Each structure stands twice: as C-alpha cells, then as structure tokens.
C-alpha cells in the first residue's frame, strides 16, 4: 500500500492534531465566502462572536524558491557512477543540475530548488557548486527534502499532478499558501455545524456581513435516490441509533496517492493523507461536517449492509490494528457474517481500502449522538468521525455529502459511480419553529439600544434561519443543522453574540435594602481559623483524596471506606476519613527546613453511609513539631484548651481514650487524651505514636490533635458573660494529695468547683507527679491551687475555712485522696 510513503506530517511548520482544537483553512473558507480582513481582525471577531481562536499559522512562505521544472536532458556524470547530470528548464531559463537519484527521466516534471533557496526541512541553503567537476545550478528535491513526507527514495515526480506547468511556483501547484486558524472547539459542543469549513464560513458571513455561497459544494452530478440497489441492500435494525443510512457503490477505482493539492489541503488542517479514496472521505468531512466511510466491497460477505447493535462479546479489529471487544450497547455496521465497522467511530481493518481495491461501498450515515459518544468513551477511541457524530450531526447532510464525494471520486479515482444512491431515512428530522419578538430579545439582553428588529431579522437570515413576520411576532424556522436552537433564549444568544457581548451597555440589578443574613457556620469557621493562627499555627490545605500507603503507615487503613472508581493515582484513591495522617506528612515535609513547625487544617472528612451520600464532617486538625524538645503533649493540649476557651465552649474534659478509638493507633499510648464536650467525644489529642515517628525518622516531639469542628460549633456559647474584675486581694492556698493514678484531674477540678462557695474563683492543677517509690505504683501526687477572692472585701483565712474543709472532705471521701499538705 502506498500510504506509507505519504505518512507523517510536515515537520516544523505543522503542529500535531489535538481533540479540543480544530484547524480551519482560510483558502477553504474562501470557497464559500469573501474574506478581506486581516488575520488579527478575523481572530478578534471570531473570539467575540463564536469561539476562541488560540492561534493561527501563516503558510505564505511555504516552499518559497521552489519552482516546477521539466527535465529536457539527462546524461551520466563524467566522473561519478552514481550521479546523473540533468538539464532542467524552468521556462525562461535552463539549468544544469547534478542529481543522485535514479528515478528521473527526460520529460519528467520535478520540483527545483534554485540557488538562494533555503530548505528548512534539511537546513540547507542551495548554491551553485562544483560536484566532481560539473557545476550544479540548483537541486531536484525529494518529498522529504520539501517536508512533504518521509520519503527520500527518489525525486518527487509531478507528472500526474493536474494542471502541472513549467515555471510555476510549486506552492501554487499544491495550493500551499494559506492561513490556518486554530479554533478551541470545547465551546462548540452544541454546534455540530461548526465542525466543518462550510459551517465556519456561514458564521464568517454572519459576523462580517459578507455574502455566503454554499453552492460551490453542490454537485453537478445527476443521481437517483432509491431504497434499493442491484448489488447492495441496506437494513437498519435500530432506527433510534441509526437515523439515516445513505450508501453508494463505485466500481473500477484506482487507489493511489492523492494529488498534492489534496494532500496539502488535508495536512494544513492536521489530517494525514492516506490514499485518494480515504482522503476524499476526509476532505468531504472537513468541508461539510459529515463523516464518510469507504468499505472494500470485495471483502464483504454478501451484498447486504446491516446496521445493528453488537452481540455479546463481539470482536472487531479496527483499522488502527487493535482488536476490540464490543458490547450490545454499541452500534455496528455489519455484513451477513460479522461487524465491519463501529458505527460512526472507526472501520474494521478487514474491509479497509487497499491499493488492490477496485469496488467500494461508500457510507454517509447519521448516528444518534449520545450513544455514539458513549461507545467512543467506552472504547477509549475518539476519532474525527466520533467527535462530529457525538455533537448531533444533521441527518439531512448525508445526501449532499455523498454526492460531493462521488463527484471527487469520479475525478480522482477514475471510478465508475453507480447512478443509484441507496437512502434509508425512517424518520426525517422536523424543522423547529420558534416564535419570538424583538422586544423580548432586547429585554433579555437589557440594552434596548444594542440592536433593532430590522437588524435582528437580517442577522437571523444570515444564519440560514427563515424569518416571517406575524404582526409583532417573528416566526423562525430553524435549519436542521442547528439543533441547538430550540427555545427563545437560544435566539437571544445568537443576537447578543453576533452583536458582541462587549458592546452591551452594563447595568446592575435593582434590589431592596434588606441586609444579607450572615452564614453563622462560615463566620464560625473563620473564627476557628483565626484563633489557630493566633496560637501560632499556620493553615495548610491537603487533598480530599488519600492513599492506602499513608493510612497503612499510620495504622489506620481500616478507616478507608469510600474508594474512588477512577482515582488519579493510588495515593489519591479514597475520600479521606481523617485529616491527621496528611498533617503528619506535612510535618515530615517541613522538618527538613524548620526545627519548629505548627500547622492546622480545617476541611471536610468523609464517612460512608449505607445507601446514601457520605456524611461530611468539618474537621479541625492541628500538628506541631519541636525538634529540640522531648515532648509536645502539653503544648498541643494547651492549644486545644486555649481554642475551646476562646470559642466559649463550656464543660470540656480530657480523658484516656478507650482502645477502640478509631485514631488510637496514631498516638503514643501513654500520651493521648480524648476531648469530651458535655460528655460527647469531640476529638483526640496527644503525641505521635513512636512507631510512626521511627518509620518517618522523626527526632524531637510531634503533638497532634483532630477535633470535630461541627460539634464545636454546636456547643459554642455565643452569649459571652462578663464578670467584673475584683479590686480586693486574692487569697491563695495550695493543697497536695495522693490520688489514684488514673483519676481524671478534670473531674477532680470540676468536683471542687461545684462544692465550694462563690469565693473560690479557681481551682488549678499545678502539678501531677508519679514516683512509685514515694507514692506507690498506682498513685500520683497532685497539687491543686485554690484561689479565693471576694468582689466586695478583703478575705481572711477564716472566711475560707469552710470551703477548704469541703475541698478536703471531697478529696478524701469522693476520690479516696490522702492529703499531704
């Protein structure tokens, strides 16, 4: 097959094809409308009214200095066996050129690079030079030297090019001079018509007000349309997914490379030339937006084309050589025996056009867009055809496209076109009607001076919309290639965008003076973050996705219960159930640069709920790292205490968590406390588990905490009471006693505060010591500082005697304490 020779793009000047970009050739547009504006003006107008033009490519200098010459004489080189000396005419001048290729003969038309020409492909400046005693006045070029293909086996012979003429610029022969615009087509998902040069040309005419003449794509061939054909029949089994199937048979075709102008035309818009038949199908698709497919008729079993859904586990090897397993949701084109193409996506390799093909079946069909898209996505196979079909192509386009293709096939393959086209179109697409008024359009835009009814009508007509006036109503008949126009708002868009959004006079909505009701939860979170920052903690953001490795390292992998079906990577495979593991990672990142680090995060964590959306809890996690300190427990606890104090949360106690606390494994066994608010678990804090510290190679101390911020919000007391500051002196007394080692000092403190008079302003734990030798294995020595103060007078010891006695009684009777002093 010849296609190998013509494979590959012309390096350097061309960029590779991308799915979200569509290349549009200005030459091609000029076939349908006038273009007089500069590329800059064109880009600015298309940007404002259609879609973003990322860039454009100017091919004005392509093939500069290359001229078509004709070989008038050829003789061997006197001093070199492998060289020939050619006499070449370029019209007025004759040149002697030494050539190493052997594929040239007298009367061949060849591309000649004359002295002074620079061949960018091979980085060579052509000069007259002596080659073994003969002066060579230029160079005959191979396809590779011109950047046409990778072929370097011989000189490019131009004899078969239509209208080839001595002395003409090579660039003129291949129609190379062009400007190519790159349109971002993501914003055109709803505009199937713009996936073609004809459609873009129509937009041009509406934007610039130029004449639009689609007739150049019309065919002059006379054809008959029929539901049957002597050597081919078509049967649509699924009329929902295949809305129309048009086909024709062409016999006696000669498959060969396309003429250079066609190859050049395809390449300039990023499509690789294959052979004349395939190139014509691509050409018509790029021109009219209708994807076509050609089958080698000799490779079909039987003479019936069946459009059906795939059978369970049906296989098809597509033309890219991949064997693909299909499923019954996918539509295929089949012969009597098996699938021969995935409908609207890609053809099968067994029936593809080869150089031996003589008879082809040409398909011009229309497939339902959602299903086409799904098939393409499922197979991971996006093609020029599927990109177009998935945008809801116009079923009325199959006939103009196939007739255009037949005309080109007759011309470029010398094939015999059957005069009968098979066409099955079970449910023709109906024309949409929209009724609207000019006032409505202007009111929705909000700028009455932007346009007029007269201008609206003329703009709509430019878009091929049929407009009739019925009193003040406009009755619009929308062409079938604009499925995006169904409601009045769609028409407002057409007028606004074509006038240019930038030209609209701006307004502001009218509203009353009702104040905004503040979102307490948002303001609350701001307060938490502010307090954390005041406490010296810096805010970090971590991903909501976590991986098994981190959670395994932290011994909490069982918490991962919400996996993603399509994670970006294994370390982002689950919705996070906690924030702390990532904060530990953050500490690990920062300890390389800091001896001290304090961070917090305030974000959501997720917990699965049976048959419902996951529960989302706003979590506050804190972590601090001190390289030069052995411990961080009291620091992290101090931060949490300061925080709950600032947030005015009462009844906060700290207790030894039970062994089944979900986060217990993160913590050092002896240095962990659960935070309770009114007895409800609100979080956990402590020092990082030694196992994790060792694993990560931490020195120093890491204190960590994670709190349920939603619960903090629930328990906060927004009514902040003020208590006057007493001017009378405090009376301070310390009590030391021995108590059970596991006794909660919060409980002790709360009991003391509850059982004393209002003269006791605070009971503060000064220290808690253990010393097995002095106090016994299960006892600790606790010192409590009692502070008495009266708002109205100075106190004497006698005033506090009663309270002091109560405290001692409680210590002894409720907590079994042994008073030491």
């Amino acid at each position, binding site marked *: 097959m010849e296609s190998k020779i013509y494979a590959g793009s012309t390096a350097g000047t061309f960029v590779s094809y991308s799915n979200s970009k569509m290349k549009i050739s200005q030459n091609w547009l000029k076939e349908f409308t006038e273009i007089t504006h500069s590329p800059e003006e064109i880009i600015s107008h298309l*940007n*404002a*009214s259609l*879609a973003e033009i990322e860039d454009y490519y100017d091919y004005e200098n392509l093939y500069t200095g290359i001229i078509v010459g004709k070989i008038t004489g050829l003789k061997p080189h006197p001093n070199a066996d492998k060289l020939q000396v050619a006499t070449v005419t370029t019209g007025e001048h004759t040149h002697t050129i030494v050539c190493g290729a052997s594929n040239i003969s007298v009367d061949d038309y060849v591309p000649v690079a004359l002295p002074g020409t620079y061949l960018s492909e091979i980085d060579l400046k052509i000069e007259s030079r002596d080659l073994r005693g003969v002066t060579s006045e230029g160079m005959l070029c191979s396809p590779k030297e011109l950047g046409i293909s990778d072929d370097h086996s011989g000189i490019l012979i131009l004899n078969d090019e239509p209208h080839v003429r001595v002395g003409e610029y090579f660039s003129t022969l291949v129609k190379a001079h062009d400007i190519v615009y790159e349109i971002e087509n*993501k*914003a055109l*998902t*709803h505009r199937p018509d713009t996936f073609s040069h004809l459609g873009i040309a129509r937009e041009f005419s509406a934007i610039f007000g130029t004449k639009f003449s689609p007739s150049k794509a019309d065919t002059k061939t006379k054809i008959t349309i029929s539901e049957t054909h002597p050597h081919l029949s078509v049967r649509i089994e699924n009329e929902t997914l295949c809305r129309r199937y048009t086909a024709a048979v062409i016999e006696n075709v000669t498959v060969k490379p396309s003429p250079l102008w066609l190859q050049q035309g395809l390449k300039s818009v990023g499509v690789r030339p294959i052979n004349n038949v395939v190139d014509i199908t691509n050409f018509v698709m790029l021109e009219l937006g209708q994807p076509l497919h050609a089958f080698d008729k000799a490779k079909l079993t039987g003479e019936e084309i069946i459009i059906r859904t795939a059978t369970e586990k049906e296989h098809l090897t597509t033309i890219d050589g991949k064997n693909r397993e299909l499923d019954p949701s996918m539509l295929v084109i089949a012969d009597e025996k098996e699938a021969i193409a995935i409908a609207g996506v890609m053809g099968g390799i067994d029936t593809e056009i080869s150089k031996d093909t003589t008879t082809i079946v040409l398909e011009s069909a229309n497939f339902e*867009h*959602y299903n086409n898209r*799904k098939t393409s996505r499922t197979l991971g196979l996006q093609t020029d055809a599927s990109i177009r079909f*998935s945008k*809801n192509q116009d079923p009325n386009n199959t006939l103009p496209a196939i007739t255009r293709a037949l005309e080109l096939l007759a011309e470029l393959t010398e094939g015999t076109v059957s005069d009968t086209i098979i066409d099955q179109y079970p449910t023709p697409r109906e024309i949409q009607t929209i009724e609207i008024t000019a006032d409505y359009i202007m*009111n*929705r*835009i*909000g*700028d009455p001076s932007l346009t007029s009814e007269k201008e609206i009508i003329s703009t709509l007509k430019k878009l091929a919309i049929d407009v009739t006036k019925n009193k003040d109503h406009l009755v619009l008949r929308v062409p079938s290639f604009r499925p995006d126009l169904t*409601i009045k*708002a*769609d028409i407002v868009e057409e007028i606004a*965008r074509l006038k240019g*959004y*930038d030209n609209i*006079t701006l*307004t*502001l909505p009218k509203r009353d003076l*009702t104040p*905004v009701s*503040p*979102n307490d939860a*948002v303001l609350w979170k701001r307060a938490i*973050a502010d307090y954390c*920052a*005041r*406490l*010296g903690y*810096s*805010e*970090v*953001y971590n991903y*909501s*996705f976590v991986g098994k490795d981190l959670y395994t390292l932290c011994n909490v992998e069982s918490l991962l219960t*919400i996996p*993603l*079906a*399509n*994670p*970006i990577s294994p370390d*982002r495979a689950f919705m996070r159930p906690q924030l702390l593991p990532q904060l530990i990672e953050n500490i690990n*990142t*920062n300890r390389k640069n*800091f001896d001290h680090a*304090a*961070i*917090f995060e305030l974000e*959501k964590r997720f917990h*699965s709920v049976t048959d419902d*959306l996951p529960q*989302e809890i706003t979590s506050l996690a804190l972590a601090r790292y001190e390289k030069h300190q052995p411990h961080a427990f009291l620091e992290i606890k101090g931060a949490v205490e300061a925080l709950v104090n600032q947030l005015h949360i009462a009844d906060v106690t700290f207790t030894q968590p039970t062994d089944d606390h979900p986060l217990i494994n993160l913590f050092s066994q002896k240095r962990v406390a659960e935070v309770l608010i009114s007895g409800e678990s609100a979080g956990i804090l402590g020092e990082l588990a030694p196992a994790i510290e060792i694993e990560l190679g931490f020195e120093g101390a890491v204190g960590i905490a994670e709190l349920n911020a939603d619960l903090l919000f629930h328990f906060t007391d927004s009514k902040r009471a003020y208590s006057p500051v007493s001017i009378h002196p405090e009376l301070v007394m310390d009590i030391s006693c021995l108590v059970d080692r596991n006794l909660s000092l919060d409980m002790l403190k709360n009991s003391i505060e509850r059982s004393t008079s209002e003269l006791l302003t605070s009971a503060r734990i000064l220290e808690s010591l253990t010393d097995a030798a002095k106090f016994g294995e299960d006892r600790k020595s606790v010192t409590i500082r009692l502070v008495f103060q009266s708002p109205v007078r100075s106190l004497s010891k006698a005033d506090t005697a009663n309270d002091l006695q109560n405290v001692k009684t409680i210590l002894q009777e409720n907590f079994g304490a042994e008073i030491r002093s």
Partner: protein
Amino acid sequence: MNLEELTKELAVIQDEILTKIKASEAIPQLNDIKVAYLSKKGPLKDLQTKLPTLKPEEKITFGQKINAAKSTIQSAYDKRQEELHLQEVNLRKDKNWIDVTIPGKKISIGHLHPITQLRREAENIFMNMGFEIVEPRSIDTDYNVFEALNIPVGHPARDMWDTFWTTNGYIPITHTSAMQHTILKEHDLPVRAIVPGRCFRQEATDATHEHTFYQIEGVYVDKNITLSDLIGTLKTFLSAFYDRDVQLRIQPSYFPFVEPGLEIMIDCAICKGKEGYCSTCRGKRWIELVPAGPIHPNVLTMAGIDPNEYSGFAWGMGLDRLVMIKYGIEDLRWFHSGDLRFLQQF
C-alpha cells in the same frame, strides 16, 4: 546636763550619723540609717527630751542647734541618696549592654492559607453587594451535579467535566454549580447567593492543572434580570476585588445550565498589555476568569421556578486563579504542598 555637754553630745551623734550615711552602700541601707536616727527612740529625739532641763534662752539656742544638725544630716542623706541612685543606674546601664544589631527573638506567627484569605475578601465584597454565602456539599449526586443543571446522562457536555466517581456512584463535585438546584429550590425568591467551595476534576496535575481546585459560584434570580445585569454585577465585583477599574472582554462559550454561555476575561494587570512575554496571561493580555451566563430556563423549571416570570444569572469563578494572579504564583501545586516556606509568605 548643761548646754555645753548637750552640744558636745549632739556633735558626736551628728558625726556618727554622717559617717554611717557616707558609708552606706545601698538605698535601703541608707533609709534604715535615717529611720534609726530620726525615729521616736532615736538619739536625736533622746536629746530633745532633755530640753526642759535647760534655761529658757538655752532652750532656744539648743533647739536651733538640733535643727541645724537635722538639716546637715538631711543634706548628707539627700546627697548620698543621689550618689547611690546614680551608682545603681550606672551599674544597670553596664549590665544592660546588648548588641542592638543582633536579630530579635523569633516568634512563630500562624498564617492563613492565601486561598482562605482571598476567599474571605471575595465573600466580604459579595456580602456587601447583597449575596448570602451558602456552602456546598463536597460529594453530591449525579442529579445535583449534572442532571438538574440540564446535563442529562450521555450529554456531550459531560466531556467538559472530567468527573471522579465514588464506587457507589456519587461525585466529588466537579463545580460549585452542583449547589444551584438546591439553592433555587429551597430559598425564597429573589435569590442572591454565592457558593465558595472545593471542587474536583479527574485530570493530571501539573503547574497549571489541578484535580482539586476552588470556585465561587454565584446565583441571582429575580424578575427582569438581564444579561447586562450579569456583566455589570461581575464588573462591579472584579473592580472592587482588584481595587481598580477592570476592563472586561467577553467570549461566547457553552455551558448547558446557562443560555447563552459566556467566558468573561479581564485585562492583565501584570503586563498591562506591554510588549514581551507575560506568564500570567501567556502573552494574550486577557485572562479568562469567570464562566457565566443567564440561567437556562430548564434549570429554573426543574427547581420549580417559572422562567416566564423569573430570570437570573449564574457564574463559577476560579478562586485559585484569582490568587495566582494576585500574587503571581507560577505553580498551582504549591497550594496543596503544605510547605511552610510557601505558606508563611502570606
């Protein structure tokens, strides 16, 4: 005792006190000396008790002598006090010497994430403009994320949102628009709300792409809301946010939940249109900032609002982008790095 003997004794006492005052080494010691000699049981008071034994004219003479002695002692005391004070000050001055050019003690201050800071700024401006703040869910249903926004299953527009899915079929929200339906359905009209939130898209991360990003959605529904109101509202916000008269440029775009779809761009304040490459606008002079549009009638209908009576607009602006532009941050990945070298700069 006679006058002569008393006068002698007074001289002795005076000398003794003056000697002690001179020898004193600290102000408290000096004060003790003074108190000791002048107190009720002190030697001077003792001499005074002997006055009645003198003749009347001698009384006067001796009284004057005592007063003179007291005055001398007071002067000596004052002088010594001043000396000692000066001595103390000088001593501390020396002790207090420091190299004032060494850096101060490092105090750790907590920093808020730059996105938090700018989100608050944006929220405050919108609140002042009359918008309430609504928080989105982070994981939501296909219905809220797509269907209620006029994007049915199979719709090609779903290509624009590369969606993550949980294995049981929920979606880490691809846009804050996921909250639109709930707001329109549950809030009384007119509705003015913004939804700041974290969003997720299934795309590989690099300097300019993130699978986790931040948006501020806006929703406005009332009678007679127009396209020009939408553009005017966003220009007002952006001018307030950037504290300058920003210029807008608008391109048509496509989002199924608005009709028409707009891409609103602002002029690049980094290069101000000057020659040369600008990494913020990539040389385009305009920065795509806010996709927006009038709310599609289908979206209103699905939320139970009559599109013939009400109209509105919505937008979803990228908060990360606002932050990147504001600070000239070159790489999105810093935001989730947890790196204090980055975070402490804000």
